[in-house]
């Protein structure tokens, strides 16, 4: 187990270096010049050059990158070009809201997705089944921007149940979490439905029924536990989806997370912040996947962990 973990963490570290390298290259070849952006419209070419030297942007690429990597190892993500503050500080302030939003979204997608999926699978072909699958299709295909604005209009402005955007209380969390979780709920309801249909047709379910186990126990204990396995493994992978969704959902609802931060930094060519957010997102995705793999054997003893070297 520990060997496996160390192997995976080693892989993760390499992956992060790769991500940092690719992001750095992409930002390096960008035609926009951060020094000019900073210097403003009234600056003379000499001022722009002076700023470029101060930021170290005049150095050759390999030097800039190795210096960045050297600082990174020491936990230093640099200073924001536009805000002049430490990137770690800015990102740290924005990370908790995003994590909270993701947690909310996971609850939403599991609660809605699994419930609908199980109910639809109990009566395949019924009206409820058809309705639920159409609904899940809508959930999967509605752009998050549209869903967010619609929810705001209906639940905040018309019904006055929730505040119009912002951050602070659980009431602020409901609508953004719903919007972000809707997509996943759509996916999970479909996956859960087919997994349940599959499991319900298995021999052990028939055996359970034959033993006289009550129907709800058959569904919830015997079938559900087996059907839900592949889905739990998906949650870790979802983190990547959430990271991209957060950019949109956070701006619609004024949620002060790192998605919003990234969007603003991109517009300002604030390279240290873009790098910082990309790395944090990469770490989250890597950890999410790792967690999914670690949890799987506990849920299903048939799954065994293998160290990467054994492959």
């Amino acid at each position, binding site marked *: 187990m520990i060997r496996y973990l160390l192997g995976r963490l080693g892989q993760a570290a390499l992956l992060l270096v790769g991500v940092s390298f690719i992001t750095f290259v992409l930002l390096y070849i960008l035609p926009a*010049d951060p020094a000019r952006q900073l210097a403003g419209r*009234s600056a003379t070419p000499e001022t722009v050059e002076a700023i470029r030297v101060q930021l170290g942007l005049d150095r050759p690429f390999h030097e800039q990158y190795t210096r960045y990597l050297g600082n990174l190892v020491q936990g230093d993500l640099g200073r924001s070009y536009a805000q*002049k*503050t430490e990137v770690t500080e800015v990102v740290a302030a924005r990370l908790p809201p995003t994590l909270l939003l993701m947690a909310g979204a996971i609850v939403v997608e599991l609660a809605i997705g699994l419930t609908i999926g199980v109910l639809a699978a109990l009566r395949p072909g019924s009206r409820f089944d058809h309705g639920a699958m159409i609904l899940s299709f809508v959930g999967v295909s509605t752009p998050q921007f549209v869903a967010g604005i619609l929810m705001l209009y209906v639940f905040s402005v018309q019904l006055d149940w929730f*505040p119009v955007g912002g951050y602070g209380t659980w009431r602020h969390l409901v609508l953004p979490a719903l919007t972000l979780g809707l997509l996943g709920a759509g996916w999970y309801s479909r996956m859960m439905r087919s997994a349940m249909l599959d499991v319900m047709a298995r021999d052990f379910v028939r055996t359970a029924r034959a033993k006289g186990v009550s129907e709800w126990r058959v569904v919830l204990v015997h079938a559900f536990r087996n059907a839900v396995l592949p889905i739990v493994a998906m949650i870790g992978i979802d983190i990547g989806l959430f990271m991209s969704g957060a950019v949109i959902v956070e701006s619609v609802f004024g949620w002060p997370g790192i998605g919003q931060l990234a969007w*603003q930094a991109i517009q300002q060519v604030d390279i240290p912040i873009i790098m910082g957010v990309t790395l944090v997102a990469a770490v989250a995705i890597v950890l999410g996947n790792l967690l999914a793999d670690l949890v799987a054997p506990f849920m299903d003893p048939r799954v065994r962990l293998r160290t990467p070297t054994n492959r």
Partner: protein
Amino acid sequence: MKRRVLLAALMAASLIGPMAQAQTPKQGGSIVVTYKDDIVTLDPAIGYDWVNWSMIKSLFSRLMEYKPGTAELVPGLAESYDISKDGLTYTFKLRKGAKFHNGREVVAQDVKYSLERTINPKTESPGAGFFDSISGTDAFKKGKAKEIKGITVVDPGTVKFTLTRPDATFLHAIAINFASVVPKEAVDAAGKDFGKKPVGSGAFMLAEWKLGQQLVFKRNPDYYVPGVPRLDQITFQVGLEPMTAILKIEKGEADFAGDGIPPAKFLQIRNDPKYKDSIIEGGQLQTGYVTMNVQMKPFDKVEVRQAVNMAIDKQRIVKIINNRAVPANQPLPPSMPGYDKNYQGYAYDPAKAKELLKQAGLEKGFKTTLYVYNVDPNPRIAQAIQEDLKKVGIDAQIKALAQANVIAAGGKAKTAPMIWSGGMAWIADFPDPSNFYGPILGCAGATPGGWNWSWYCNKELDARAAKADALSDPSKAAEREEMWRGIFTDIMKDAPWVPIFNEQRFIMHSKRLGGNDAYYVDPVRIPINYDYIHLSGN
């Protein structure tokens, strides 16, 4: 609606009267203002976007300020000032009793320190270039001098500036945010984080800042203007889309949408009688234009540039953006001193345009590229321009790019034949015509990385501009304005630009807010003048 249309020029002329007889504004109360983007910084040496611009004005004070709601210069931290006969020395007497938020009195040494801090290349201030006429800035910037010798502290209440040349825009420069006075001890204590822990001597002080969530401004009880600010507190909620912000105002959760009315909702809101008293329209010191690179064929020929000027139907473009602008015929916006009301410009005349192209030997037309910022409505505007040009035989291909990339292309020699300036258009840093010349139409801006995207450089006009700016004697203001008027109409003879329109500002506030409309469309404090707005009622 008409009656609510206010232009800065009219304001400057007519406000003094009505303002004096206005009822005493309501004191106290707090409001909520929303913005989409988080505040980048509140450091006056650094902040240079229109979200933090007016906030910085309210946190800090400068030697010179503008009469609220107008573009008229008045003394601020200075009590009085004196300009020497040769226009080379400015002496400011400081107001007694003006205090920083930390309780210390503002003295002349603070003025010197603050300007040196802005001009010091280590600060990386985008505003350092505004003070080049102060003697000794060059040596200081290059590290050859420890201080700027042109700024002298005569005594704690007096500061003197020596210039290298007479500069009619100097008082504007000293009124710009980058000249805000900051206390050295607070800057030293905060270090690079001064932008997050600002200490000034303005009407408001920063009470709270939750990154990415909200900022709270509290009234500065020691502010040197009695009765100002009118509000006790302003909460800035950041991260809210303009659409969400409007919903918040409708529901009474916010009072003012800093980003304005989103285009998609504009017509609906404007035509709704419910909002009649909540929407204010004003001019702004902005011109949207198409540049033609005079170093690139065939725009090196003046006939071609004039032809393009006649080929574009500006009225139609204004309609495309729901009449949120007025058609332009010259570089200066109508509310800017020096604007020529009588100038007719190039009227829309495709037949004449074709004729001019024929004269230039291009009766078969030509192919070119139009660069444009890829955010709505700019691509739609570019398409309208493309259709118009097609009618006279010019085949313009549209290249829609991210903002920074268009700016980069414009600043690179012989790269972008045409650029539609929308979304990046020039908005004046201060209300003076010279600010619309040097960087965007003068030879100084026609350098790599510059903002003169036409690469137009007319030495004769440069000399005339320098002469106009040397007329720093306030009694010669009218003469100077006349000179600038001539410069801009002469530029149009060479037609390096097609001026398309001047954007109008539409702002929406909640019913709770009242007061003079002029404070909501203040030409210098964009989007609004936080110090003077107040709750409605008495």
